[in-house]
């Protein structure tokens, strides 16, 4: 079962609550066809109209519905960004936005279908929760938290996955403890296994989270020493601001790893893009090793 399958199954179950409305723009409409037949007033497919998709979500929320809005990441977050800003936030209403595609799940499709900047863009808004599950089994609980809440949530699904699920990892969850004083690596969502493999021979504590916003600042302050590494499956540095603010009162160094800004103009597979962006275990190992060496006491 993929994250998308898990989402479709969970979201369909929420339609038992008449306040839930699923809003689509053709993408995944087939997957929700059965739900649309059973709940015709609660599954809305506006066609290939992303501005309308988000505007409709705003209108639904104004009447008290809880919209779940779903499309491919660049079309959901980037194409209709002003609708997200104005039709949801400015109206003082919330929605649950659920994307598929992530940074480069369909690398062979090219730039139009890549959305490495989605989380950074959502992060320009105030008060959003961002979930980046690392395994399909993490999706149902995250969707439930989102749909049962009132404010806006972005749920970023991917075809990439860790081997094992941690369903309760909103706060930082230590998956490898290298002892007191060790560098702390925070891995967000599906990059956890690569990050663990990368530091297998290094004195690095690894903590996992699938909720980069709000970031677990308390957990970070409890775990962090003076060496910080953040590995995110989207634009590198997206969480650098949050980490810097959380550790502003103590000397620290921060290495932010993630997807680069440059447009590579290359197709290939998601694994190829991992390698080109230095997010495969070997690339992560090189960057982290250099970072720790550079920070080591001289002599």
């Amino acid at each position, binding site marked *: 079962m993929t994250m998308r399958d898990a989402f479709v199954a969970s979201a369909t179950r929420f339609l038992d609550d008449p306040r839930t409305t699923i809003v689509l723009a053709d993408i995944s409409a087939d997957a929700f066809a059965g739900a649309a037949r059973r709940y015709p007033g609660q599954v809305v497919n506006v066609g290939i109209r992303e501005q309308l998709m988000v505007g409709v979500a*705003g209108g639904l929320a104004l009447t*008290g519905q809880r919209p779940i809005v779903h499309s491919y990441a660049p079309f959901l977050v980037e194409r209709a960004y002003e609708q997200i800003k104005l039709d949801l936030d400015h109206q003082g209403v919330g929605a649950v936005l659920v994307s598929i595609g992530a940074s480069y799940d369909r690398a062979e499709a090219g730039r139009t279908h890549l959305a490495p900047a989605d989380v950074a863009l959502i992060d320009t808004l105030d008060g959003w929760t961002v979930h980046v599950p690392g395994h399909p089994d993490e999706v149902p609980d995250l969707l439930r938290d989102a749909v049962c809440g009132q404010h806006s949530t972005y749920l970023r699904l991917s075809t990439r996955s860790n081997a094992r699920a941690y369903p309760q990892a909103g706060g930082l969850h230590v998956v490898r403890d290298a002892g007191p004083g060790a560098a702390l690596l925070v891995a967000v969502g599906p990059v956890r296994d690569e990050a663990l493999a990368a530091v297998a021979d290094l004195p690095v504590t690894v903590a996992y989270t699938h909720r980069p916003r709000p970031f677990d600042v308390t957990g970070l302050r409890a775990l962090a020493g003076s060496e910080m590494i953040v590995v995110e499956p989207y634009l590198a540095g997206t969480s650098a601001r949050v980490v810097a603010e959380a550790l502003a009162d103590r000397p620290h160094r921060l290495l932010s790893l993630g997807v680069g800004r440059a447009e590579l103009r290359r197709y290939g597979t998601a694994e190829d893009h991992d390698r080109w962006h230095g997010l495969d275990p070997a690339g992560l190992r090189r960057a982290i090793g250099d970072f720790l060496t550079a920070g080591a006491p001289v002599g």
Partner: protein
Amino acid sequence: MTTSTATRPPGRLLPAPVVAPLERIRAGDAYDANVYSTVDVHWVLYDRVLRVTPATVDDPDRDRFLLSKGHAVAGYYAVLAAKGFIPVDWLDDAGGPDSRLGGHPDRTLVPGVEIGSGSLGHGLGLGVGTVLGLRAQGRTTPRVYVLLGDAELDEGSNHEAIAYAGAAGLAGLTAIVVDNSSASHGWPGGVASRFTVNGWTAATVDGHDHDALHAALTGHDGHRPHVVVAVDTPRHPAHRPADADRPEQAGRSEIQAVRPDQPGRSVAGDGPTPGSGK
């Protein structure tokens, strides 16, 4: 009292109850012509059409009025004050640092205002979603009215909403387009045709004729979305300068221009000024 008019400011015919509040919010400044092109529609809606009162602004079964062209706000605030939705003294410091009334309305600050608007092309999508929400809740009574401008129709988001609302048969939706010929490239074939081709019913009326507006605003057939095109004709008395009989002044209410697509047609000078919205 609904169609009585007064002549304030000079030369402009306005619904009598909004004259005083409009003067108060105007505070001596000149207004964009869109105030005058739209205030009659605002007045007829709140006086004769909308089933909403200051006591029912949170009633889920109220009618909704969504002002999409958020710059047409002075007449809106004047009508809301005249109808008791907001205290009249709020009009005195509109736009000030402690005011709830801005140059574009904010629904979280003003009782009775259904949406915050200002960036064009957002109201109709929000209106479609509102109709869908009411429908999902089985509320068949409320109707959703969205006010746009003809230049606002330039925004493609409107056409997403027009096409979908027609296809989905959103019978609870009425769009009102105040047509003051301000779209830079015009709408050859007319504004209404953009809607009717998508399955809407349409009525095109004099945007200052209260009885005609009332008939059009209540003329939906209950099966399809409805559009009212409220034409703001340059020849209407609302545009006649007070001293139009003085030859040297007569031409000042209009800017003569020729549209490339409609040779010889003059364009009313009551469109938006740059920076005032569209």
